[in-house]
């Protein structure tokens, strides 16, 4: 038997008419009680068995299905008196004001109504919103005082929130309202925006209330055996109770006043049943004082049905654990703990080709890796291998057509994700490598796209269940396919930290290896390539340079020239003679000049990597990154690299000069303050004198800090040369591995001005920041200038100011993440339906053309060269130069 899949074609929205409600209801609910003393549901109560089943094992009294299959059935409450649907009170108000109180026509002459009708039709045809037109009609009709159809004088109608209408001091009961709405002709209703086929105006006043099936409001049994009802059930109980009392009172002929009170109460309960957050209505509360979660609350907001359950869905076959680094994995791989590999499964259909292979998995069972957890018969029935007693018996039965849910094994494609998933590189496909221990392992080059570090970050993994999905993941989502970011058309995956400083040290001109060392490095890194001719021979020993070995990783016909990160941007570039070795020249796959640093294969910046992906493809790029990682990490591990506080040591001379500069800055500030006091400070255009002073002081102080930084750097460099010992901190900063020269400055020389809101620190006591200063003191130290370095340590006052600046930074980050998160949600929501059509136009779902060509030239940014569709210059030069040489 082939199951014909049902497909939802579309969804039509409409109001339920009283007839429809009665028709779809299986039970008329009359009693407010739910269960009798024995714990059985009462017929005609809110838990009537005909409303569906929630208890496993029982069959539904209406449809005869069991729990999972019975969708539940509606009941109804016949309201003793009609009530207004809160959600429509506003609309009812607009309508009441726009129609005649006597004849029910719209208070506009026929030709005008007709004109509106035409406009509405036009709007509908071109797919524009009809709302403004209907609003316009309401506005026009409201102003009319005398009905143009029957001549009746109109009275003023006031709307008292949430559900009361008053016509000329006379209260309109829902019955009156309903009568008026009934009088509206179908054609008039259409002009007011109604689709009369599914929504007559009078249906906005309820006479029958549908009771949702029990499946919608299941009661939960607490541990104590006590039953706890759903909020909706509680609310429905209230409604029924009041409804009954109202009915009894009406029958008994109670005074009008009492009836009206009860009616009002019924209105309240129905109102809060729909929405418990209506302005002006006290929310209905649970016994504990917690406001009830009624219909509107179930749908609304982040935790509501729409955003939480419909737009986002929970999945099986997923895992989550802490991540840790492993440079021995390929960027395409992910290390999966065996524990997780045994839990996650991949369905495999048994075929004559794989049957023996698959049987091994089954034999291993759920607890021995690599095994299987379930087998599925061709009819869809699942057998848990944990519960199978006789494996051999089962193995007999396995034949092509069965499905086996086997454990994850090496090479399986899985999706790997880290939240927040801000861009598409936050979910990428990796190949599984089952490893011991309990963390996910990943190559460090994929940290930037995930924005991951290893200070306790956790990541999610999803085992792909379908063949199409697997193919798509492999072709489109694999890490190597994502090296180029669609954001700017450059690499987003690349070396970080030790990769960079390692490569920098490795490619230094003086680095050399003996043949044995070179082989050892290459072997440890798993690079299988013949060594070139040794660069030089000394004392009969053959030596290879770091550059030579690095060249082994490069494609053989690669030609590239660029300036490295360490480039000092001299006025006249000495090119190949660069004294910092910052001019990188790669000729025919040989690194001839220059050092490798952030600009060569760092994430976001790597020129070399960029070139390899674009010219040699993603396979070459993956191989390059894998090899670089291994080679460079092996090298730096072997060589040793560490930083400590002595990396910020400065000689006495430097300290004196720094102190001098800070003195000088202090003097200059005093000078400025004096000039200000004597009123001879030159005012900046468009600024007050005070602002000018403040700006000048800031300028002086920031210059001073920069100068101290320059001195610090100068001496660090000098010391490095003198002691012939590299300064690790400085190497990291200049090669772009980690930190910046500013960080070094702050550690070694002077922390500098602390700012709050972009100004020097000014809050605190009146006229001063702290009681340690005189009122009106605006010198550098009184306003948060930190003279000390981090290494030397901050004075208590400096520490306090530094803390102020630091706190602002923290608050800023917290505020920013929420703001940018919301902005991104809005952007995604606004743009998500846009796609490129086969005619290369960009359109939304309605077919509206948003762009004739994407980005005016029809380019895919991830395939561009930093935004350029084709780097013509590069191509032309490649061919022209060949001729010239």
């Amino acid at each position, binding site marked *: 038997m082939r199951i014909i899949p049902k497909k939802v074609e579309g969804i039509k*929205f409409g109001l339920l008419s009283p007839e429809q409600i009665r028709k779809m209801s299986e039970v008329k609910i009359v009693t407010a009680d739910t269960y009798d003393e024995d714990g059985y549901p009462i017929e005609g109560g809110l838990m009537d068995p005909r409303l569906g089943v929630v208890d496993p094992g029982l069959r539904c009294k209406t449809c005869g299905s069991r729990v999972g299959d019975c969708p539940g059935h509606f009941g109804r409450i016949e309201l003793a008196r009609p009530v207004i649907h809160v959600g429509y009170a506003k609309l009812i108000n607009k309508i009441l004001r726009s129609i005649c109180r006597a004849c029910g026509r719209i208070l506009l002459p026929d030709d005008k109504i007709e004109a509106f009708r035409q406009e509405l039709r036009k709007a509908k045809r071109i797919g524009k919103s009809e709302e403004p037109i209907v609003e316009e009609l309401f506005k026009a009709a409201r102003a009319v005082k005398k009905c143009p159809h029957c001549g009746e004088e109109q009275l003023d109608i006031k709307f008292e929130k949430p559900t009361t209408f008053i016509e000329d001091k006379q209260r309109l009961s829902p019955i009156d309202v309903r009568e008026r709405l009934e009088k509206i002709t179908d054609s008039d209703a259409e002009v007011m925006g109604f689709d009369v086929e599914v929504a007559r105006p009078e249906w906005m006043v309820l006479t029958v209330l549908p009771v949702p099936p029990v499946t919608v409001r299941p009661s939960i049994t607490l541990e104590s055996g006590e039953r706890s009802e759903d909020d909706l059930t509680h609310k429905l109980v209230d409604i029924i109770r009041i409804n009954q009392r109202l009915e009894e009172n009406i029958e008994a002929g109670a005074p009008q006043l009492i009836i009206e009170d009860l009616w009002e109460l019924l209105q309240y309960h129905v109102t809060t049943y729909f929405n418990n957050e209506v302005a002006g209505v006290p929310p209905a509360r649970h016994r504990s004082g917690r406001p009830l979660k009624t219909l509107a609350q179930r749908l609304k907001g982040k935790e509501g049905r729409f955003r939480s359950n419909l737009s986002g869905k929970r999945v099986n076959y997923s895992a989550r654990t802490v991540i840790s680094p492993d440079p021995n994995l390929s960027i395409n791989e992910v290390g999966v703990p065996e524990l997780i590999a045994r839990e996650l499964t991949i369905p495999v259909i048994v075929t004559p080709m794989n049957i023996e292979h698959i049987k091994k998995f089954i034999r291993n069972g759920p607890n021995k890796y690599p095994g299987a957890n379930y087998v599925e018969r061709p009819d869809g029935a699942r057998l848990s291998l944990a519960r199978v007693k006789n494996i051999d018996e089962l193995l007999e039965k396995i034949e092509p057509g069965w499905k086996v849910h086997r454990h994850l094994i090496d090479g399986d494609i899985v999706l790997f994700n880290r939240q927040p998933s*801000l861009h598409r590189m936050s979910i990428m496909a990796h190949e599984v490598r089952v490893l011991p221990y309990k963390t996910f392992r990943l190559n460090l080059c994929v940290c930037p796209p995930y924005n991951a570090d290893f200070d306790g970050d956790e990541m999610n993994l999803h085992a792909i269940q379908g063949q199409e999905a697997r193919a798509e993941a492999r072709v489109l989502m694999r890490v190597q396919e994502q090296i180029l970011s669609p954001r700017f058309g450059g690499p987003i995956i690349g070396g970080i930290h030790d990769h960079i400083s390692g490569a920098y040290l490795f490619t230094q001109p003086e680095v050399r290896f003996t043949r044995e060392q070179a082989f050892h490095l290459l072997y440890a890194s798993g690079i299988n390539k013949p060594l070139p001719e040794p660069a030089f021979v000394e004392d009969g020993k053959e030596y290879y340079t770091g550059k030579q070995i690095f060249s082994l990783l490069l494609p053989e016909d690669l030609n590239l020239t660029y300036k490295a990160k360490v480039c000092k941007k001299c006025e006249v570039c000495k090119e190949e003679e660069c004294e910092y070795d910052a001019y990188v020249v790669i000729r025919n796959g040989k690194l001839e000049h220059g050092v490798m640093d952030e600009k060569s294969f760092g994430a976001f910046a790597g020129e070399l990597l960029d070139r390899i992906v674009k010219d040699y493809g993603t396979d070459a790029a993956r191989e390059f990154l894998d090899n670089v990682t291994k080679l460079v990490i092996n090298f730096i591990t072997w060589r040793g690299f560490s930083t400590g506080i002595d990396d910020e040591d400065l000689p006495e001379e430097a300290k004196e000069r720094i102190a001098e500069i800070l003195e000088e800055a202090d003097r200059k500030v005093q000078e400025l303050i004096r000039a200000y006091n004597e009123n001879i400070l030159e005012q900046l255009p468009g600024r007050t004198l005070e602002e000018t002073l403040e700006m000048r002081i800031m300028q002086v102080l920031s210059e001073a800090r920069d100068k101290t930084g320059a001195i610090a750097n100068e001496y660090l460099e000098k010391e490095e040369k003198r002691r012939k010992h590299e300064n690790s901190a400085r190497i990291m900063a200049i090669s772009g591995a980690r930190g910046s020269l500013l960080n070094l400055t702050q550690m070694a020389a002077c922390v500098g001005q602390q700012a709050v809101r972009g100004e020097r620190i000014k809050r605190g006591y009146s006229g001063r920041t702290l009681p340690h200063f005189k009122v009106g003191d605006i010198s550098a130290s009184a306003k948060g200038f930190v003279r000390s370095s981090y290494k030397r340590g901050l004075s208590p006052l400096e520490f306090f100011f530094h803390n102020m600046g630091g706190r602002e930074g923290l608050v800023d980050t917290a505020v920013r993440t929420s703001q940018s*998160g919301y*902005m991104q949600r809005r952007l*995604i929501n606004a*743009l*998500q339906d846009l796609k490129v059509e086969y005619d290369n136009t960009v359109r939304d779902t309605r077919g509206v053309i948003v*762009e004739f060509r994407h980005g005016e030239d029809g380019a895919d940014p*991830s395939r561009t060269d930093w935004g350029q569709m084709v780097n013509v210059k590069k191509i032309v030069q490649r*061919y022209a130069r060949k001729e010239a040489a």
Partner: protein
Amino acid sequence: MYLSEEEIVERIAELKDKLPSSLYNDLERELRRVKITEEDLKKVVAEVLRRYEFAKVEPGEAVGIVAAQSMGEPSTQMTMRTFHYAGVAELNVTLGLPRIIEIVDARKKPSTPMMTIYLEEEYAQDREKAEQVAREIETLYVRDVLEKSEIDLVNSRVNLYLDEYELRRKKLGVEDIVAKLKSIKGVEIEENGNVISLTLSNPTIKDLRKLANRVADLHLRGIKDITRVVLRKEEKEYVIYTEGSNLKDVLKIEGVDVTRTKTNDIMEIQRVLGIEAARNAIINEIQDTLNEQGLIVDVRHLMLVADMMTVDGTVKAIGRHGVSGEKASVLARAAFEITVDHLLQAAVTGEYDELEGIVENVIVGRPVKLGTGMVELVMRRELEESKEAV
């Protein structure tokens, strides 16, 4: 054996229709610079065409989502604070994330409206003339040149003490102010050095106070809304930066280069220059803000955002009041914001949801029609089965 420039141009002429104009122009420019043989030229052309074909977007690509992510992801790295405009320390301009949010919100007024006014050649090189234009633009009220004003109860009149320094700076004479004061009816003006006395016939104290206020608010010269003007020498010309924006009136001023002058008020650009200009302004403003923070985002993404905001002829916000609120699908709107209202409204108007978009398909649980999901290929089952039989 090298080809002459003419020959090169002739040989690549056929590409003119195949490549986007910018690309073609690049190619022509680069080729004119080098010497190249016929054979190599052919290789270049082939390579350019190959790369061009590769760089084209594929049908089905979810360009919208990619654009939104490309703009949203880096925005987490932006600063929050208002900073001084690059170079012009005198002006405060909203930058960073708040500015981006302001742009996509399509606010009526930016929080710090600002103009960059370029001048025509003869004004741009001459400090005197540039200053004159600047003076003409900056709005000036009587209160700006007042040292103080007092109500003289004895003589029942208002005395205005003018600030000499300010007058000199603003190049104004006492007579200029007197001339302006003449526009107030029923007032007698007496001039005495730096003091101007205004007398009313039979005034009450209230009248005098009113007069004093009215005089202080009297507009002397300049353009409304432009509260501050800074003249700066850029690389090769004088440029005027202003706080406050009034594009329409500034463009009327003589000496202003109407082709380059700009404002950061996108809605104003829409009013004055039209929707296409507004679209370009959105792109430029977002790009400038991002670049200022050192973030690189491909323009194509920003173009798409700007195009989405301006498709129907008016600038619409990204969000429930604009683009998202006007979506065709009820479910898409309900899933975004104000869920309940959208559902109630949909019921009354009897809306029909075609379930074409992303959220809708996610909600009903079927593949989304983007990328690989867009392909609608049906395999003829009989064919497949007959194959199996063989």
